[in-house]
């Protein structure tokens, strides 16, 4: 596609519910990132994929967070047993390059609200 597509655009979850957030990167982009952005803050790194390999998951805040990219294209970020502190915008970004040498293309994000 022309850009990075994320769905759903908005998600309201009851505390304790599991959620799955989807990211469709630009076709052919090798690198894919997930970021979490709290209200009024900058994005915080969660995890990084190079094709289907998850090379860095150091930013995932707990073992309730899980990400996958099984075929090296679409990625899913799953949050189990959601808590109120998980409320944030979840941003996906992709890049053609293996490194950050040319900038990243971000999706519009999924705004998760846990009630």
């Amino acid at each position, binding site marked *: 596609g022309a850009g*990075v597509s*994320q769905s759903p655009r908005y998600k309201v979850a009851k505390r304790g519910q599991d959620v799955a957030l989807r990211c469709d990167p630009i076709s052919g982009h090798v*690198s894919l*990132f997930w*970021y979490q952005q709290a209200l*009024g*803050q*900058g*994005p*915080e*790194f969660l995890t*990084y994929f*190079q094709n289907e390999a998850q*090379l*860095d998951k150091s*930013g995932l805040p707990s073992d309730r967070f899980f990400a996958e990219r099984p075929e090296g294209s679409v990625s899913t970020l799953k949050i189990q047993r959601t808590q109120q502190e998980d409320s944030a915008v979840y*941003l996906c*970004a992709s890049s053609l390059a*293996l*490194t*950050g*040498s*040319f*900038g*990243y*293309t*971000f*999706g*519009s*994000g999924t*705004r998760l609200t846990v009630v």
Partner: protein
Amino acid sequence: SQQGEEDPQALSIQEGENATMNCSYKTSINNLQWYRQNSGRGLVHLILIRSNEREKHSGRLRVTLDTSKKSSSLLITASRAADTASYFCATDDRASGANSKLTFGKGITLSVRP
């Protein structure tokens, strides 16, 4: 953790004026990037400056980088109301290597009054 720190936190100017935003960071970097975010939207890549560059231009944007001071500035000339947005600096840390990731600052809110 957030490496970049932007200054000021908020900036309000009149249309046509120039806007200068500053960013400081802590570690050695491969490059530094500036992004814009309109309310409720994703980030848009504006400009990237590599660690061996000192200045770069793109349209009405001018970015400088001083690696000795670990700082960067973004200048938007002849601002327009449409430039109203949040601006973030992000560093691609040298230590990340092949596992590249960006570390963002908290952002600057720019308001351009018509």
